[in-house]
């Protein structure tokens, strides 16, 4: 088990703890598992420390709660990942926007 796996497995009671059912991670939609995998993959590549991501996530969760936002855990997880990537210079917001637009017409090919 990798170090990050240990960290995530241990993180059970904090706000950043991933949703679980019967002890196992729960993804309600496929994209949630993709985002989860991406966050770990980028960390394993050394682009950031897991703690940096975790702090972002906790910040994202608490500010969303403070706003009374009804967003889900993985929507906040995604926002935390996106902000961290931008801050780390891993990519630019315009690039993500461009790719998001490019995804639109291809959706029937899913």
């Amino acid at each position, binding site marked *: *088990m990798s*170090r990050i*796996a*240990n*960290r*995530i*497995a*241990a993180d*059970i*009671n904090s706000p950043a703890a991933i949703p*679980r*059912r*019967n*002890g*196992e*991670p729960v*993804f*309600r*939609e*496929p*994209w*949630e*598992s*993709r*985002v*989860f*995998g*991406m966050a*770990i*993959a*980028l960390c*394993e*590549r050394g*682009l950031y420390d897991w703690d940096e991501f975790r702090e972002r996530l906790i910040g994202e969760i608490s500010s969303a709660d403070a706003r009374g936002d009804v967003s*889900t855990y*993985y*929507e906040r997880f*995604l926002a935390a*990942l*996106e902000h961290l*990537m931008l801050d780390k210079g*891993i*990519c630019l917001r315009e*690039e*993500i*926007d461009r*790719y*998001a637009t*490019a*995804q*639109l017409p291809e*959706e*029937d090919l*899913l």
Partner: protein
Amino acid sequence: MSDDPTNSHHHPRALSPAALRAKAIEALLVEKGLLASDAIDSIVEIYEKDVGPLNGAKVVARAWCDPPYKRRLLKDATAAIAELGFGGMQGEHMMVVENTPKVHNVVCCTLCSCYPWPVLGLPPVWYKSIAYRARIVREPRVVLREFGLDLPKFVEIRVWDSSAEMRYLVLPERPPGTAEMSETELASLITRDSMIGVARIEAPSRR
């Protein structure tokens, strides 16, 4: 599931903004050569299936096969478990408690959900339930029977209450009929529940 909007091949507009954003980011990162889609697949698979009691099973199997290791494990579990490369505890100590024909150990956490995660992965939901935490101390024999473990009256039951400082792992009894099995084969018999102490390990069926 039909109510899953991302699962539909024919209603792409149902894809949520977050799903779209996630797809865009993945495509971008792949394009940049920062990650491969199959790397994400394998990470997700690891977390969904393999992050679990496997490490504990390896510890138990080693203890069954290697008497000096077992002595070290019972004397200083934290160090003996670290010998196999498992750790990452944050200051907690591990203690391994051995089941014998006369003593059965079972682990709980009455205060919250302390759990030896480096060896057992994520705790099952029932472990965290108020019912288990309260009743396993008060009426362990009854609770174990509900788990399907009907212990003879002469077996003493010891309940170990985990804390932030101390985590317990049960060393189950090696089942009969396993003398010929390798350490790896043995590890595959060892269940999470047996290492929490709510089950025993069944002898493998001979086919």
